[in-house]
């Protein structure tokens, strides 16, 4: 993508998806000591309890990132991230998911800056549920990024609230 290339209204900006992917790979390996593998088949499985950390980005475009962590792997990731044992049903598990996505978001902003895309992150929020299902949005771009690690699968959902011609504009222009 070039700096002035327009983005189709229904497409999630590829530069942002690329930055987010780079950030989540580096953040995951920094925290958990392993490189997650991208699952291109998109075999996300939400047939069970999940916890999700959600954060928004405001800047040249507005978009959100959701990190969905199934119950099977959440306590293991929580232990590695915090150094504490955190039961899946405890309030601390929600805080852990929020903090995890918050740390990731810091890296996303840094990755976007490298690509000359300005963004500021919001405070994180948390969602929990069984059989977590995302209703497809109409219009704006949606991207799923599926990963596997030693403990199991997890995935990300990127949703652009507003895609436009400004996406990818270089800072200062």
């Amino acid at each position, binding site marked *: 993508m070039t700096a002035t290339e327009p983005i189709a209204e229904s497409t999630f900006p590829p530069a942002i998806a690329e930055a987010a992917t780079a950030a989540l790979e580096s*953040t995951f390996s*920094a*925290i958990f000591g392993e490189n997650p593998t991208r699952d291109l088949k998109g075999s996300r499985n939400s047939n069970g309890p999940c916890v999700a950390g959600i954060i928004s980005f405001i800047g040249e475009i507005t978009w959100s990132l959701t990190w969905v962590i199934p119950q099977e792997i959440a306590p293991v990731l929580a232990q590695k*991230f*915090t*150094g*504490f044992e*955190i039961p899946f049903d405890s309030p*601390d598990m929600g*805080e*852990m998911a*929020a*903090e995890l996505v*918050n*740390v*990731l*978001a*810091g*890296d996303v*902003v*840094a990755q976007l*800056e490298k690509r000359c895309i300005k963004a500021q*992150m919001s*405070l994180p929020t948390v969602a929990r549920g069984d059989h977590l299902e995302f209703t497809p949005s109409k219009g704006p771009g949606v991207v799923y990024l599926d990963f596997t690690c030693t403990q199991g699968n997890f995935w990300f959902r990127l949703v652009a609230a507003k895609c436009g011609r400004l996406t990818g504009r270089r800072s200062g222009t």
Partner: protein
Amino acid sequence: MGTPLRALIIDDSGIMRKMVMKGLNDSQLATFEFVEAVDGKDALDKVMAGEFHIAFVDWNMPNMSGVEFVKEVRTLEKTKDDDAMPMVMVTSEKTMGKVQEALDEAGADSFISKPFTVEELKYKLKKHVDRAQLNQVRKARKQRQLAAPESKPSGGFFSNLFG
């Protein structure tokens, strides 16, 4: 180990406050007595009500951000740098612009990006913890001097003389 350092841990995430406290204890840089605050406003109230030797401050928080808190404290201190409370930003923000804003504009002393390791805490915090301990000793000495009665020769010769 001397008197514990009173450390203010400011983060809207309870789990992150626990992680920072655990990291500081594991670093063995000092003995800490922790007080927790859930946002900048809560922290400012606590600073105005009590004495702290060092503060660890998150950036993005509701009510008052970490950077706003640091600016408020620096305005309140109005004292020379040696006596200023060391304040360390512990945040997921990591762009150079944010680092500069925290250190140069707000007046924070150091900047630690999450996730952090104990080794990183040790490396980045040593001099700030040392300064906090020095401030603690200096303040304790001042308080002892203020608390002591008017200096009046006592005992021996003067006691005998003025009876």
